[in-house]
C-alpha cells in the first residue's frame, strides 16, 4: 500500500532526521520526499511518499500524529 503524508513541521535543524527516523526505525523505505518553507517561515511542509503493508502505513501515520509540533494532513491513500 502506498501512503502519501503531508506534514507541517518546525523549520529548524534536526527535524528532517526526526521525521525520516520514524520511517527508518520501522524498516520502511521512503520513495520520495520533498521539503519546503511555507508562507510562515517558522513552518515547513514535508511531503513523503512511502510504501508498506497497511498496518505499517497506519503505524507511521499514528506516530507522525504523535510527533510533537507536527501537524499532519490526512494521508492521500492509494494502493
Amino acid at each position: 500500500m502506498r501512503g502519501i503524508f503531508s506534514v507541517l513541521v518546525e523549520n529548524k535543524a534536526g527535524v528532517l532526521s526526526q521525521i525520516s527516523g520514524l520511517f527508518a526505525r520501522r524498516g520502511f523505505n521512503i520513495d520520495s520526499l520533498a521539503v519546503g518553507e511555507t508562507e510562515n517561515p517558522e513552518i515547513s511542509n514535508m511531503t513523503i511518499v512511502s510504501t508498506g503493508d497497511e498496518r505499517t502505513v497506519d503505524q507511521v501515520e499514528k506516530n507522525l500524529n504523535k510527533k510533537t509540533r507536527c501537524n499532519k494532513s490526512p494521508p492521500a491513500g492509494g494502493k
Partner: protein
Amino acid sequence: MITGAEAMVKCLEAEGITKIFGYPGVAIAPFYDGLYSSKKIEHILVRREDAAGHAASGYARISRKPAVCCTTSGPGATNLLTALATAYSDSIPMIAITGQVASDLLGRDVFQEADITGAAESFVKYSYLVKDANDIPRIFKEAFFIASTGRKGPVLIDVPVDIQQQKLKNKFEYPAQVDIRGYKPKTKPNGQQMKKVITAIKRSRRPLVCVGGGVILGNAEKAVRTFCKTFSIPVVSTMMGVGAIQSSDPLYFGMLGNNGKPYANLAVERSDLLIIVGARLADRAIPRPKYIEQAVSVIHIDIDSAEIGKNLGPMIPLVGDAKNVFTELAKQDIAVDTSDWLNALAEIRKSIVDHRVFSDELIDPNELVSRLSGRMEDDAIYVADVGQNQLWSADNYVMKNGRFMTTGGMGTMGYSIPAAMGAKMAAPNKQVVAVMGDGAFQMSMQELATIKKNNVPLKILIVRNRVLGLVREYQLTKFRKRYIGVDIDGYPNFDGIAKAYDMPYFEVTEMKKLDSVLAEFIACDEACIMVAEVHGEDVTK
C-alpha cells in the same frame, strides 16, 4: 539580569523540584554554580551518570511527577542514554538536562562533544537543543508539560555552556501557560467509542481485563479495581501492571505472558472479550498474537493512539486516560453474569500443577519473594531488577497497598539500586527494598556510596546463584546446556563489600533460617545488604 544557568534553576524551583540527581562536568558547570545558590534544590551526586537517570525514574514513579537528572556533555550525556531508553520504554516522566559544548563549536568534534539530541532521538518523548537563553523559561515549562501529560516520557534539554552563561534580556518570568502546536493529548474518551465498548462488555460472557503499566502511570488503580469489583470481571496483569491489583483480590488471576502464571495465559485464551488497558502487549506478554486475534474479541484502551493496533490486530479502540475511562465505565449499567466464568477460572487455577523443582538445600526463591513482600509494611515499595530475580519477584510478589517497580520494557540490569534509592528519597517514610541477582548488583554497586553518603535507609537483597541465571536458563533450554559467559562465581566477597561501605550484612543459605534472617533484615533501620543463596540450577519456568 540573570544568566541562563540561573534561569534554569529558577525554572526547576518553579516546578517544585527539590532534588536533582546528577554528575558535574565543565560543560554543565554554570548550571551547577546556579544550584550552589539555590536553597530549595538539593543535588544528589551519583557515582555514574546512568544511575542519575534511574534514580530520577524511581523518584518520578513514586512521586508521580517528573523528576530531574543532569550530566555534562559527551561521555556524561552518552552514559545517560541507557537510562533515557529505559524511562522511555516504561513511559516514565523525567527531565534530563545535559551540558553541551559552546554553541559556536557545535559540530566541530571538540573535546567532550556528542550530538546527544541526535543520539537520544528515538527514545525521548521530545528533546531541545537550546540556542538562546531567553527561550529557557518557555522550554522548561514545555518540557515539564510534555513529560507529564498524555503518554508520559523523558524529555531531554541540551544546553550549550555559553547559553548557560548568556544574560537574559528581560526579567525572569516563568510562563503560566503552554501552547505547543500539534500537541493536544486526548484524555477524554470519545462518546461513540465508549458506547461500542459498553455494548461489547454487555454482550460478553467471559470478559477479562488485562492491566498494564499505564494503569499505574495514569493513577487509575482504584478506578480499575472498582470497575472490576462492581461487575465481577476478572483481571490479569502484564509485568508493568503488577501491583495495580492487590494480590488478595479474588478477581486477580496473576501475571500473563511467557514469564507469567500458566493459568493467567489460559484465562486469556478461554476468554471471549479481552479488555486491555495501558499495555503495549509486546512479545513477552502475548507471545502468540495471531491466536488471540482469531479467538478473542479485544478492546484496547490506551492514552497513546499509536499503541492501538501496534502489536495486536482488529479490535475496538478507545483512546483516553485510564482513570477517566474506568470511572465512567463503573457508572454504567453493565449487567454481565460472570459467575460461571469465575468458577471456570477457579477450576483452571486449581488444575495447574507447578512441576518446577527447587533445591531444598538452599533458599527457594519463590518463598523468598512471597515471605519478604508479605512481611514488609503494607505500603512498602519493592523494586525488582532484571533476570530470574525479576520473574520470581513478579510471579510471587504479594501486593497489599505498596508499589512494585521494575523495568519491564527495556530490561536494564542494574536498575534496582539507583531506582530504589530515588524511590526512598521520594517516600522517606516507606520501607523500600531492591531485589536483584548477583549480576545486576555488580552493575550498580558503585551507588552504595551514594546511598551511604546521603543516608538513604534502603534494603538491598541479592538473590545469589553465582550465575547469570536467566541467560543460563535460556542456554539450558535452547542451546543444549552449552553454557558460556554466564558463570560469575567467585568474586566479590559480598560481606566484604558491605563492610567496605559500612553497611550491616545478612546472609541466609538454608530455609529454616529464612524467616529469622528476613525479620532482622526488615527490621534494620539503616541501609543494609542481605544475600540469599539460591541454587544455580533453579529455573523460572
